[in-house]
């Protein structure tokens, strides 16, 4: 138990600190690196909860793909973030006021709202039937059996997104020199090479 508590406070503490560094670091590359650290610690928290699949996905997808993509973007775009931030401080008071108003509204409204009495019955945990399986298996059951329809439709939506990206951005440019292997293979030295004898002292 004590080891678990120690691990939790370690992960949670580093997570909070690195999240703070993400938004305060002056150098955007440092921000992204702290983001990676935050993801790793969040993955650690998931492992503590027994959700090992989500932990792995977090590392693979967010650290492996998203954060690296951020890093590429930050390094390739020459944006001075200090310039973007200049003058943002003057909006802090009004932002705080609006935030406070929204918060009081939310607290007031949520305080009086009631839930439908059947709610807890409707909310039966979808994985109840899979007790004993690892949570990778349970997720697979839910995703590919119960929600196969939504899963396949999501696939179609991504398919449309891919077509759309190609339709809207891909142009065939004339005058671009592309490598064509078959053309290269078909070249005959006799057609393209000419051997001239140049006597010394004169040009070609």
């Amino acid at each position, binding site marked *: 138990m004590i080891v678990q508590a120690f691990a939790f406070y370690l992960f949670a503490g580093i997570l909070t600190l690195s999240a703070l560094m993400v938004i305060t670091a002056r150098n955007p590359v440092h921000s992204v690196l702290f983001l990676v650290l935050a993801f790793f610690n969040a993955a650690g928290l998931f492992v503590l909860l027994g959700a090992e699949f989500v932990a792995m996905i977090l590392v693979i997808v967010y650290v492996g793909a998203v954060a690296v993509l951020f890093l590429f973007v930050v390094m390739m775009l020459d944006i001075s973030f200090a310039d973007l931030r200049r003058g943002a401080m003057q909006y802090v008071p009004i932002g705080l006021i609006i935030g406070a108003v929204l918060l009081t509204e939310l607290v007031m*409204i949520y305080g*009086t*709202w009631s839930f*439908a009495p059947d709610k807890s019955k*409707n909310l039966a945990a979808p994985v109840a039937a899979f007790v004993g399986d690892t949570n990778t298996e349970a997720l697979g059951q839910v995703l590919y059996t119960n*929600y196969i329809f*939504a899963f396949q439709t999501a696939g179609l*939506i991504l398919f*449309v997104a891919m077509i759309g990206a190609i*339709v809207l951005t891909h142009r065939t440019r004339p005058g671009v020199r592309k490598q064509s292997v078959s053309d290269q293979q078909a070249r005959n030295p006799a057609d393209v090479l000419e051997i001239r004898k140049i006597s010394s002292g004169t040009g070609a």
Partner: protein
Amino acid sequence: MIDFNLIPVLPEMFLAMAAMGLLVVGVAHGNSSTNVISWACVSALVIAACLLFGMSWERQVVLNGMFVFDNFAGYMKLLVILGLITALAISGRYLEILRMNRFEYPVLIVLAGIGMMLMISSNNLLSLYMGLELQSLSLYVLAAFNRNSLRAAEAGIKYFILGALSSGMLLFGTSLIYGYTGSIDYGVIGATLSGLTALPFGVIFGLVFILAGLAFKVSAVPFHMWTPDVYQGAPTSVTALFAIVPKVAAIALLMRLLFEPFAAAQGQWVQIVYFLSLASMVVGAFGAIAQTNLKRLFAYSSIGNMGYALIGIVAGTPEGAGAVILYMLIYMVMTAGVFAIIIGMRHDGIRANHISDLSGISATNPVLAYAMAIFMFSMSGIPPLAGFFGKLFIFQAAVAEQYYILATLGILTSVVAAFYYLKIVKVMFFDESVEPFEKDIPFARRVVLFVAVVFLLAFIFRPEAIVGSAQSAAASLFI
């Protein structure tokens, strides 16, 4: 274990396979194959319609309760397929002239069609959202399809940003519904809410957000801002598609959502839909008066027409729902005819879409002029044309439920709307001719025009066949 019966999903599955297969063919053969792919898409849609006819139209809920097929779904899907076929058929020559005839165009239309059919059959807030996004994403791409036109790009961006905003609202509403009822399944939500004396505040809040999100999709006032700009900016063939089909699907979605899971909340949503309907009719009628561009004018006209269709939903009875279905069918036919004419408007190869470009075409293109006149008379609701009956049944349903104000305002605004419809007729028949249109009308467009005119004229002779089928489709929502 879940019921893995895929028969009711067969038309959608077939269309998805066809879209993917045709895309591969297109990639292999390049843009020269666009015409072939376009007609292949039409045949795929025809086959899907045949599959629909071959299925049992009894109510079936499959795939873990996410997908429902019943009489209503079958009827609305047939309407959608019909609209898609029309939209594809009238756009062939136009795409060639604008050098937009890329093979992705028909494939995207089929994919949008799958999205619409999934919307109609959704039985779960998750499948609702999935269908809606599939449809919207395809339509965003189509709106910006003409990359060389600044206006088309603007239309695409506007449509995309506002569509994304509305999807966000819809999702927020969905999350509230899930939070306060504990389910996203239509059946479970319906059962949970019907057992309550007072609705939880959170559910009402969620319902408001969902309705706001869907009002964007049917372009009901006050969520109509995008419509005129998108209709004007998008290529005319895409505008035709926008005007003919997606609203049928969105209205069907709205009907199922309001009559099935939220039937118990009728007292709440009636107020919202009442306002949407009233505001749409007024803005649609008065907004169109000042327009000189035909595409903008029909954008406002579609806003107004959605207002009339919503009256039938406000009535909340099977008769009202049947009237909405009938209204959407007649509106679809009229719009298809109108756009079959607008899409062909050219003077010496230059595209024209202003009202003044129609002046005096009764002398130069009498057939087009008379067809357009019939569509205009029908849209303004003059008997004995079909448009009159569409409005008549809607108002009857409203009066039967004592919504006198709504019905009266509906009649008043349709009088105002008649002004601009008849103005088009006046321009065509009594103004000096500027220059003749190009005369050759492609065969497919002739067929669409002919069928639309015959439908509008002949409706009065056999109304009971169509009205009866619409009513029985609507009745399947109220069991």
